[in-house]
């Protein structure tokens, strides 16, 4: 990574358009901010503010429109627009999702699930190489929030992510809340999932709120929806502590995209992530010394 900023281990927050003018004007104490480039590439005024912000804080770029899982390929003009934004603001990290969202020229505005098999692996690996070449830097791939899987999958999501790292040199963004949510929805053990990820490839963690809904299609009658509209839930905080124990301290990002609260609420969530990270790291250090 070539950024002049270094990504701090301190937690950051997702910066959405309602907060950007406030952040530029008040310059709150924050570790770093994450933006979605799709909110800025067609917004010249937002881009001006973003450039001001990038002089003050480390910025992470989290794409939602690159769609590395689409069989139709990468939208190259969009990739070039993202590259141009990256060249302007010099982010510390660039990431996206293990999902697909484009189909024959349509943008479905959702992160849709993929079957985990050899054909998908070849497709996603090829697109990841193209994205990394196009952006001129490593790309962090985020594990999805899952409500369904595919009967024809021949490998687990963890195996699939490990293969992608081996084949492409991509990095991983582990969304801890997604791991918890998907484990609940799909019936797997969230800690075992984290245990299976390659710790050395994980460059970032995400935490976001989810919403429980009644679901008669689910054994417990409840499905967790990745709404990013609530505070991080207690079980996700507990899993975050386990992730820090497992991976060590990592740049952590609080996501909140809907029913967006005052900026202070986001910064308080980031402070809690910092506290858990420090506490867990201190305990681990004591264990090493005592052992």
């Amino acid at each position, binding site marked *: 990574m070539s950024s002049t900023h270094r990504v701090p281990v301190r937690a950051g927050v997702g910066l959405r358009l309602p907060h950007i003018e406030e952040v530029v004007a008040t310059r709150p104490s924050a570790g770093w901010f994450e933006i979605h480039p*799709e909110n800025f590439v*067609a917004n010249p005024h937002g881009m001006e503010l973003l450039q001001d912000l990038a002089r003050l804080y480390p910025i992470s770029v989290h794409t*939602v429109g690159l769609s590395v899982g689409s069989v139709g390929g990468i939208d190259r003009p969009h990739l070039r627009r993202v590259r141009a934004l990256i060249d302007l603001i010099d982010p510390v990290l660039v990431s996206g999702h293990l999902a697909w969202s484009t189909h024959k020229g*349509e943008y479905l*505005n*959702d992160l*849709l699930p993929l079957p985990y098999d050899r054909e998908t692996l070849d497709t996603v690996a090829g697109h990841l190489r193209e994205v990394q070449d196009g952006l001129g830097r490593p790309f962090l791939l985020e594990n999805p929030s899952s*409500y369904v899987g595919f009967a024809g999958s021949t490998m687990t999501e963890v195996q699939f992510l490990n293969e992608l790292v081996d084949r492409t040199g991509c990095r991983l963004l582990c969304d801890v809340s997604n791991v918890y949510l998907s484990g609940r929805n799909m019936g797997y053990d969230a800690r075992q999932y984290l245990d299976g990820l390659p710790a050395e490839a994980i460059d970032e963690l995400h935490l976001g709120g989810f919403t429980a809904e009644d679901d*008669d*299609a689910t054994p417990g009658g409840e499905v967790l929806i990745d709404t990013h509209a609530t505070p991080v839930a207690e079980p996700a905080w507990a899993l975050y502590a386990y992730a820090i124990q497992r991976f060590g301290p990592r740049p952590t990002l609080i996501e909140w995209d809907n029913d967006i609260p005052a900026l202070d609420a986001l910064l308080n969530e980031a402070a809690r992530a910092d506290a858990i990270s420090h506490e867990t790291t201190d305990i681990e250090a004591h264990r090493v010394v005592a052992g």
Partner: protein
Amino acid sequence: MLSLAETQQRLRDAVVSDKSGGAADLLVGGLNAAGRLAIHRRHYEASLVAALMGRFPATGWLMGTAPIEDAARVFVHEHPPTAPCIAEYGRDFPKFLTAFLTTRPGIRPVPELRAFSELDWHLGRLAVAVDIPPVTRDQVAAIPAGALADTRLTIQLGTYYFEAARPIDDLMKLYLADAALHQIELPEMDVRVEARGARGVFRFARLTPAEFAFRAAIANAQSVGDSAQNAWNVDESFDPGTAMAGLIDAGLVTDLSLVSALPVRD
């Protein structure tokens, strides 16, 4: 085993077109995995309807939000986005909305609704525009006299030209002033308007028919000569020199290029 292409086609149909039958056999998760596709279908519809409602706030103020949401819920399934920036979505919605509302019982027709909602969409674009440094009179004067007619002028991106048979610019100013909407009478009256916006600030200027023909043609990438001809078609006394000077002095022109030297646009 289906190919990835066929799998994605079936999921796309389930999410966009509500044809979940083709995807049902592919899925696992919960007791009724196919039923869980409703989560994706619901998110698709809700997020895009919300995006459209955010893109047409003045239209919602004028008509009430319920009929606009009804139209949006149908529109998003018939016209999925074709660009990754959802803020750009909905340019075709005004035409759809106008036709949709004529089929709804109890909705009183609103004159110039399509033009008003098109203006609404464009104001969203103008709100986030920025003015870039304009060219000067000296730069224009440096163009050889024989080349001026074949020159194209690039206009500030935060500009929109529209005409309507009612004063919808006044109606939009009422919305922007946060006025309560009671009974409003819009007289029949042709208006030709230049709307400018930058960093959230808007200006509206009414133009004469010839000025409008000239400036709208310039904004539509026609050459100075062709744009002047458009204006002469409306008013033989049109003076292109004065019109050019007006454009330059208003800071509207950001670049000059010869027609033959223009790069091909994407």
